[in-house]
């Protein structure tokens, strides 16, 4: 995946982001190739979401360079698709799945969009078909399950044929089966279109089968590499500056602080419990 002559879909060079004295990260070099899937992990406040904001052109770097598909980032770039976390949609909001996907195509444009409506409809239908959501795409969004909504979110992000797919915790609040389904759908759709994926998550296990590399951020320190190289007791202990144990349990990775140490391992909870286990109990809910 990295042995490639093509220009990277996304490039960070000596990137630095700081708010006043607080440095989120510095000296970040990262090339993400077309079709590659990079997971961004780390505790809350480590700058995962800020990295997405930089790539979206909503937040300028404090230093260094960032490029998307060979061009400087800019706000509202058509080269980027964005998938947010699932949120409850109020039933009084008049929007159907197809409207959501359509807005991903031309919601940024001025005017009513009366011209080119048949072309728009055709592209929306194709995007909805590609994520197998045709059966419920014309229903009110508020009546759809979290997994169904996230399928449509994938269609919304892909309908404009982006080069880079930015995902901000898209699995949060989904049950375990939907987590797996949505992460596979994102990975397959992106690979099929040769789009790069930057996937911010606090939980690596649902994306583990599809991840090429991991960017792990902790307090300004970071490590980039394949999961096998980054998700080790040694590397994470170094990043967290406290003893951390990484266990492999079948095809799952469990990260836990050694007893007596409090470490925010990324779930947003200061906990001595391995948060991945608590996620598993969530997955058992109906």
């Amino acid at each position, binding site marked *: 995946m990295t042995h490639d002559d093509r220009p990277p879909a996304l490039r960070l060079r000596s990137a630095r982001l700081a708010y006043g004295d607080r440095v989120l990260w510095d000296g970040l070099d990262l090339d993400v190739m077309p079709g590659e899937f990079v997971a961004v992990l780390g505790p809350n406040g480590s700058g995962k979401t800020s990295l997405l904001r930089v790539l979206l052109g909503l937040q300028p770097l404090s230093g260094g360079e960032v490029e998307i598909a060979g061009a400087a980032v800019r*706000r509202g770039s058509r080269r980027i698709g964005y998938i947010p976390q699932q949120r409850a949609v109020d039933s*009084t909001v*008049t*929007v159907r799945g197809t*409207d959501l996907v359509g*807005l991903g195509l031309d*919601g940024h444009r001025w005017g009513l969009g009366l011209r080119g409506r048949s072309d728009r409809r055709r592209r929306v239908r194709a995007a909805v078909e590609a994520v197998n959501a045709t059966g419920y795409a014309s229903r009110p969004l508020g*009546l759809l399950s979290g997994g169904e909504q996230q399928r449509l979110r994938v269609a919304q992000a892909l309908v404009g044929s982006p080069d880079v797919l930015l995902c901000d915790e898209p699995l949060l609040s989904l049950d375990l089966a939907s987590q797996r389904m949505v992460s596979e759908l994102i990975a397959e759709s992106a690979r099929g279109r040769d789009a790069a994926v930057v996937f911010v998550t606090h939980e690596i296990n649902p994306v583990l089968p599809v991840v090429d590399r991991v960017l792990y951020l902790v307090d300004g320190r970071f490590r980039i590499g394949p999961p096998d190289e980054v998700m080790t007791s040694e590397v994470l202990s170094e990043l967290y500056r406290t003893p951390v144990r990484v266990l492999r349990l079948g095809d799952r990775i469990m990260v836990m602080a050694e007893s007596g140490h409090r470490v925010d391992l990324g779930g947003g909870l200061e906990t001595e419990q391995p948060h991945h286990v608590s996620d598993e109990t969530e997955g058992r809910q109906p």
Partner: protein
Amino acid sequence: MNLDALFDIDTTLNLLELGFVRNALLAGAILGLVSGVLGPLVVARNMSFAVHGTAELAFTGAAAALLLGWSVGTGALLGAVVAALILGLLGQRGSERDSVIGAVLAFGLGLGVLLLSLYPGRASSKFSLLVGQIVGVSSTGIALLSVSALAVILVFALLYRPLLFASVDPGVAVARGVPVRLLTPVFAVLVGIATALAVQIVGALLVLSLMVTPGAAASRVTANPALAALLAVLFAEVAVLGGIVLSLAPGVPISSFVTAISFLIYLVCRFVGGARHRRLVASG
């Protein structure tokens, strides 16, 4: 009121011949169009309280205009636009918006009451600012109404897609480069202008029956944004034109009928929407 008068069709038909009644109907039709078009997004953006607050400040503006001898329509318009800007700029954060509106609304209404008490003219014109009136939309009033309405609809059409995006899906809209923070006060001003127009017909206290109820009713029965706008316009027109015609013979303020029809439509839509909701959930 005399119930027989309500069904006095001859009187109603005779009154419909009159110029000022025609003006009222024309004003009502324009108002129904504007409020219906904006309604679904007002509902989607949870702006009911903002509309109410804006209406109270339109009342303050109108009261000031009465005292200064300006046209009431201009005063209402100025008051509403100032209110919309204040609310749109101060209350960007959802958690703060509610209290900002409450504070500004109370002050504005108090100021309006003071201005009205200083006004030496007839008490009925004071009352009508709060609960609406049938007479008093002059030809110049119609001109101002038409120009304002046209401006609102044109700007709304220009902003339609980003506004819809920002209203129903703000997170992704920001990521796609839609100026969500800028659209909030802009839409608030559009709503403010429409509200000021409504104040002149149904009065400051009952603006919600045209600005919110038809949109809320439409949102109960469809999730299609274009159809929701169309239905909201239809509901608003039925309410405002029906209200005017019914109020002619008994000679009561039109707002009682407008609000009643509007609420009836809302109840029916809730009922129909509830059945639709159950059907969709069952089939899913």
